[in-house]
């Protein structure tokens, strides 16, 4: 999970993930088009994202296609987000119960 947080700690890499979320299966060349970065920098960022398993790649003929792999982000959600969400859901449910209780009891 360290590799995932490290990979996400860069705005350029997050932008690459956003691009792949919008358009799955882009090549390095296509990813470079809208990035304000050198091809080499994009390539290095992609390597880091791939190492963190946030990006998966598939070879189609001579083209390497890049995909956002949402699985590690889902694991972060499970580990870090869900419990807080559950707590706020419970707080809301309790509030609802209290407010309704005042009216109906």
């Amino acid at each position, binding site marked *: 999970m360290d590799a995932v947080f490290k990979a996400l700690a860069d705005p350029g890499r997050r932008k690459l993930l956003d691009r792949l979320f919008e358009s*799955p299966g882009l090549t390095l060349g296509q990813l470079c088009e809208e990035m304000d970065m050198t091809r080499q920098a994009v390539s290095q960022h992609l390597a880091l994202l791939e190492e963190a*398993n946030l990006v*998966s790649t598939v070879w189609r003929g001579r083209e390497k296609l890049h995909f956002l792999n949402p*699985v590690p*982000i*889902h*694991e972060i959600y*499970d580990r870090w987000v869900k419990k807080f969400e559950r707590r706020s859901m419970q707080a809301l*449910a309790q509030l609802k119960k209290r407010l309704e209780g005042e009216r109906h009891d």
Partner: protein
Amino acid sequence: MTRTEHVYVMFIDSTPNKIYDAIVKPEFARQYWYHENVSSDWRPGSSWEHRDSETGKVNIVGKVVEAQPPSRLVITWAGAKEAANPEAYSRVTFEVEPIDGMVKLTVTHDQLIAGSDMEKGVNAGWPRVLSSLKSFLETGKPLPIWQKAPAR
């Protein structure tokens, strides 16, 4: 109609055989997927279906395209209500390969109609299924993946 694809990768501390069985054997799938994938023999040309383990309702249907246990399985995939419409079918490829003492499971879901409910559904579903599969195989405990809002 634009078609699109998604690729999901999960590294699991297990064996290729266990991972393959967890996909094709109902007695395993129901424990972490809460659904089961059923086919008479899982051989090319055979049909398969995806059922809710609790209700038995068939949600997804398709055919087996390729099967090389335990490393590769290719199936077609359509909502049960759209079974008669050839346009509705997308394709799922499971690839299982040992890497560095772990097993890499790649699920490629392609030929999806871009922007369809099916695309949105599977894109939300696969990460949950794979996380639960990993947890099930590594710790014996699946994740409550289809959990609805907390019951009061």
